[in-house]
């Protein structure tokens, strides 16, 4: 059965970015629906811990221009300076808005919002560390997501919960006219016909074996975009969070180091002093992750296989840990069998965040291909999008900010620009390709088991596209991932029932993951330099002459094109290129 729905706008994804966009539209009385494959508060925004950055200056003097500089430097100069200015300039207002909605921020003694130091956040253009990250203990994402969902309840936003998006609807002109989705509870298909389709589908960290990401982070939006021949930008840049719990992969917030925790190796040495003499443990995440990996390579690792390091915070005292890092204590006890009040927590760099994504303008409009022309009716916001504010490396606590600033911008742009827009006619046989794909998964003609192929994909990405990248491994990896793509076309599940068939969901998710993995390894193989999170053993230096440009991966033929980085901000002077040291 195929159900048919019509809306002004549909938002795909119920995390922070999606809910901020829908809020903007619902408040203006638009006919908007949010389509989410999980209940909105189960979205991965909920797992963000440490905080959300904005130069509120609640603890010490601060300026959005400093935040802008830190973000540009953090991005290793790959971030677009106009987008970064937009984000940092609008950060404070976005935080105040969340507070007004009821977000339960921690407070200073004067009653203002509490802020803590975070990696790469500095005062006066790199002088010293600054408290810029607004926090709700170590549950900031949870508090933000619930607040945004609550606001949407107040605004009576329409939700389609436990529907997974399968394919974009694009007509002959290349315009996007909506989405084909699958209702998990019934197994029915739905055509969501809309003037505007906003992707807020989140990340895809599940292409790697060791990941802080939830099981749902399978790059569904990127998969759909790729199948609709939309290029993906900067896909080689994946953030390895320095402190995932060794073995379990569960995230331990950078806020631990913000509050004064630090890393030690097997010699009990504070090794970050050697790698980042000034910022030490609060250097950018890419820098810290490489340092830890180097310590392990050099034989100074800890744990049964000597493949991690220790994060120590016991010196902070039980009281502070209980007040500011209660979730971390809970997680460490549960997943590492360690009470951080007494003992250090074994950690390892773990895949965490996708800097790349679907290319967009400052208003969230998707830019297509080499021409970078805007796609009519199509927007992307949040982790699935690449504006690009994070460039080659995201600063901690800039991602929650990205969600709400650009979620709002996209919503506002739709309100401003699509008043007189008419709903275009749907193309003929709009569901054909999707139904064929579903049928193939259900037909037991092929033998590829999604679990096995998925495991192979994750292991391949982990080995061939890690913290340090080697030319031979990249070459072999690309061949392997291409081979896996052929196999993934022939996935087959044993269970063909309709109601809440999670085997089918997982097969469909794997067909999205493979698009992301292929874009990642192809882009990584092509970029012959080291910048931010992309670290090539054979090209260890940043090469601004050849590579100060964004990658654009074309999913149609696997080719790569490039576009220059926007060095010109909106209103302030450009920040010139500099060597990046912490």
């Amino acid at each position, binding site marked *: 059965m195929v159900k048919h729905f019509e809306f002004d706008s549909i938002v795909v994804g119920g995390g922070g970015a999606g809910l901020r966009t829908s809020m903007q539209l619902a408040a203006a009385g638009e006919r908007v629906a949010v389509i989410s494959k999980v209940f909105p508060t189960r979205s991965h925004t909920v797992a963000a811990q440490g905080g959300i950055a904005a130069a509120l200056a609640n603890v010490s003097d601060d300026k959005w221009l400093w935040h802008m500089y830190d973000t540009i430097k953090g991005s290793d100069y790959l971030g677009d300076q106009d987008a970064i200015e937009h984000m940092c300039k609008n950060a404070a207002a976005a935080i105040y808005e969340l507070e*007004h909605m009821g977000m339960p921020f921690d407070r200073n003694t004067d009653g203002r919002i509490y802020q803590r130091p975070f990696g790469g956040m500095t005062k006066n253009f790199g002088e010293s560390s600054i408290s810029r990250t607004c926090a709700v203990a170590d549950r900031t994402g949870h508090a933000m997501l619930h607040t945004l969902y609550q606001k949407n309840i107040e605004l009576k936003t329409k939700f389609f919960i436990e529907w997974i998006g399968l394919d974009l609807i694009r007509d002959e002109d290349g315009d996007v006219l909506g989405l084909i989705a699958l209702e998990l509870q019934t197994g029915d298909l739905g055509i969501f016909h809309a003037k505007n389709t906003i992707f807020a589908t989140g990340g895809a960290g599940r292409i790697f074996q060791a990941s802080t990401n939830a099981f749902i982070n399978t790059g569904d939006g990127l998969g759909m975009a790729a199948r609709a021949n939309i290029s993906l930008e900067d896909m080689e840049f994946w953030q390895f969070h320095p402190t995932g719990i060794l073995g379990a992969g569960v995230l331990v917030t950078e806020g631990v180091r913000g509050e004064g925790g630090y890393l030690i190796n097997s010699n009990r040495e504070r090794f970050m002093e050697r790698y980042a003499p000034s910022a030490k443990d609060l250097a950018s995440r890419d820098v810290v992750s490489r340092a830890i990996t180097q310590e392990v390579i050099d034989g100074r690792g800890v744990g049964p296989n000597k493949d991690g390091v220790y994060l120590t915070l016991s010196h902070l005292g039980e009281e502070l840990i209980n007040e500011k890092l209660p979730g971390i204590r809970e997680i460490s006890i549960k997943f590492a069998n360690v009470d951080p009040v007494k003992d250090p927590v074994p950690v390892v760099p773990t895949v965490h965040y996708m800097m790349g994504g679907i290319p967009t303008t400052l208003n969230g409009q998707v830019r297509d291909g080499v021409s970078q022309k805007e796609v009519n009716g199509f927007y992307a916001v949040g982790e699935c999008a690449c504006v690009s504010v994070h460039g080659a490396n995201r600063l901690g606590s800039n991602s929650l900010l990205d969600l709400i600033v650009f979620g709002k911008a996209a919503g506002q742009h739709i309100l401003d620009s699509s008043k007189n827009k008419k709903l275009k006619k749907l193309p003929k046989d709009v569901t054909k390709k999707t139904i064929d794909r579903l049928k193939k998964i259900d037909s037991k003609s092929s033998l590829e088991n999604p679990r096995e192929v998925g495991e192979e994909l994750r292991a391949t990405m982990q080995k061939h596209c890690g913290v340090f990248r080697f030319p031979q491994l990249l070459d072999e990896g690309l061949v392997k991932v291409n081979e896996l793509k052929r196999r993934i076309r022939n996935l087959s599940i044993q269970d063909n029932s309709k*109601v809440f068939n*999670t085997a089918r969901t997982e097969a469909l998710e794997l067909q999205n993951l493979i698009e992301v993995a292929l874009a990642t390894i192809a882009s990584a193989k092509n970029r012959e330099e080291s910048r931010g999170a992309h670290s090539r053993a054979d090209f260890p230096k940043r090469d601004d002459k050849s590579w100060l440009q964004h990658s654009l991966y074309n999913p149609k033929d696997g080719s790569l094109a490039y576009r220059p980085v926007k060095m010109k901000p909106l209103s302030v002077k450009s920040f010139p290129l500099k060597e990046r040291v912490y």
Partner: protein
Amino acid sequence: MKISIYRFNPDTDKKPYNKVYDVKRTESDTMLLDLLIKIKATDDSLSMRMSCREGVCGSDAMNINGKNGLACVTKIDELKKPIVIRPVPGLPVIRDLVVDMKQFFKHYDSIDPYLKSKKKPPIKERLQSQEDRKKLDGLYECILCGACTTACPSFWWKPDKFVGPAGLLQAYRFLVDSRDDAREERLDNLDDPDRLYRCHNIMNCADVCPKGLSPSKAIAGIKKMQIATKKPKFKTIKKIFHVQESKK
């Protein structure tokens, strides 16, 4: 290791049954969810919800050896064997361990779970003292997994009327927020023998909450407020007493 799991697929099964799986546990399997994932790898028809695998998204609430909890933060070592898994009780089963949570969320929506303030907010943040902010601790952390509400006999009895521990915990979260000024309206909304007073302090909610929260305490707080800030409607009091008398 043997695990018995409740199975029901409306497409193929006339009635539910328990299926016993024999699963080989390895060193890396620490949580119950690890085992369930392993089982699903051999039997892809087993259906359940899961996402963050660290106890913050609230997807994988289920009934484990008779007690509600999250599979992802339940240690295998701490469970009596053989492990018996069922869906959380009190809600309709969609399939296997997946229950229909519409009723649960309807109650959540009914308490108006958002800040209400008639005052125009300042340009910057509203100020809130650390003491006032502390009042929200133990309340805002709820992950809406439903473990508490579906463990509550009062909810089983009147699932369509009793708001349940999760909903009431959130009601209290807004009642004690110094920034909210709709206290009376909120109390009015709950001044009802079924919506609020169905709670008889059985405390299952606090016992099962995977985040260590106490809805029971919050509900007692709401009842206290009802009495302190405004007299509960006579009808309500009468009805409560009537219920208690008839029980004797």
